[in-house]
């Protein structure tokens, strides 16, 4: 973990999802170059947390700063220009755009950096021979790879991955996660939301576990034993 100011600082965050409060006083620190996993059960507030950082959801209290800059009130598209890119839950591929166009549209913010169509296709070779296909004609795993590639095309400093493994076969999930070291090597900081605890613990430097909208546990995977994680995940007191 590098020293210096954190790339992302979430402090005292309250946020609402529709009519119910999804986050209570949540604080998260992410240093540049880290891979941080947010785990938790369904409805624990993981996706709301990412949505608030990406600018899709409003917050009612607390602050979110990126590289020392307060993001309050900044719309999502301007956060992309700053270097925050989110791969949304459910992939959200643009169905009327081809695979290549889905990647090109990811570079809409015109941030310079290592990620180009060629670099993404090298990272995910399974997309290579499908460049001209429509985005909706891909399998779930291909769509997930494309969604991550689209997110990378913005050359983000911070990549937010929401529920990458949801609905995918384990072998496909493994292939997607195999891309993570290359993304890291390019200097990108990653925050991933994951229901698959094993996958998250294997990939992350640090883990936050959310329980009913509050941070129940945080630490490096090596410091955390299974019982504590289970307690934080399910809310069962040991």
């Amino acid at each position, binding site marked *: 973990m590098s020293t210096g100011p954190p790339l992302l600082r979430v402090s005292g965050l309250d946020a609402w999802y529709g009519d119910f409060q999804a986050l209570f006083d949540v604080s998260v620190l992410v240093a540049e170059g880290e891979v941080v996993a947010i785990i938790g059960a369904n409805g624990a507030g993981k996706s709301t947390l990412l949505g608030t950082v990406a600018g899709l959801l409003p917050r009612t209290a607390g602050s979110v700063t990126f590289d020392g800059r307060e993001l309050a009130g900044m719309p999502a*598209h301007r956060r992309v220009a700053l270097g925050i890119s989110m791969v949304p839950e459910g992939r959200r591929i*643009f*169905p009327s755009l081809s695979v290549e166009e889905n990647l*090109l549209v990811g570079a*809409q913010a015109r941030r310079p950096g290592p990620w180009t169509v060629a670099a993404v296709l090298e990272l995910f070779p399974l997309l290579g021979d499908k460049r001209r296909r429509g985005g909706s004609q891909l399998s779930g795993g291909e769509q997930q790879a494309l969604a991550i590639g689209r997110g990378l095309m913005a050359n983000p400093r911070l990549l937010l991955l929401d529920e990458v493994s949801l609905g995918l076969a384990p072998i496909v999930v493994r292939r997607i996660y195999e891309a993570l070291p290359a993304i890291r090597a390019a200097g990108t900081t990653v925050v991933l939301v994951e229901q698959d605890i094993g996958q998250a613990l294997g990939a992350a430097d640090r883990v936050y576990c959310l329980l009913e909208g509050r941070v129940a546990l945080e630490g490096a995977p090596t410091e955390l034993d299974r019982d504590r994680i289970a307690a934080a995940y399910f809310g069962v007191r040991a």
Partner: protein
Amino acid sequence: MTTANNLVQGLLLGGLYALFATGLSLMFGVMRLVNLAHGDFAILAAFLALVAVDGTGVHPLLTLAVVVPAMFVLGYLLQRGVLNRTVGGDGLAPVLVTFGLSIILQNLLLELFSADSRGLDAGAVEDTSLALGRLNVGWFPLLTLLTGAAVLAGLQLLLARTRLGRALRATSDDPEAAQLVGIDHRHAFAVATGLALATVAIAGIFLGIRTTFSPALGPTRLIFAFEAVIIGGLGSLWGTLAGGMVLGVAQTLGAQVSPGWGVLTGHLVFLAVLAFRPSGLFGKPVTT
């Protein structure tokens, strides 16, 4: 021979209807917004051209150079200032707001220009024709069709090949995901409305040269535009041209039977398409 002539006239008239319909189709395609004031904006553009012609004495076709960009800006500001507040809801708000806009525009034009019918005089191009064997093809209807085809081709290229076009299509697919790739969806919507009003401005000026216009004419034009879009099929620009041509042919052939039958025949063909092929001649089949 009269029938053949009318058939050609009808096809050419389709070019004008396509110009009217394109913007309507674009706005619906990008933001699911039905602009009930679309026809009134065409009439507004015709009056703007009239003011320019009266003020400077230039040829009406030259006013395109000023009126079309002006209407683009008006469309952009209208979307940013008003219509963006109505999209994303249940779909009723934009209908009510554009219906209100339609009434405001009609009354504003009535106040400024009276209810008199006016026309744009384009001189010789209006009443000379090209003799093709025994068919007479008017230069101006031919120019209208070519302009319509050129506008559609340009728009098609813009949407298919450019960065802006990609952004518009992505926003149309999923406005929230579009924001996540750095697209300002409000700006994209405004550009779409700007383009829509720019194309309908061309339609309005060609209409003004072809025939006379008055402040209350917008809604009729809106209905023809709707019919061209539905006959051609939503989401298909070339379908819109075909839809305009089908409507144009139906109207001219109907009018050949009896002058009062022209518009009615157009409506009947439209109804037949709705009944037997609701997704239009070139639209994708409705699956949901």
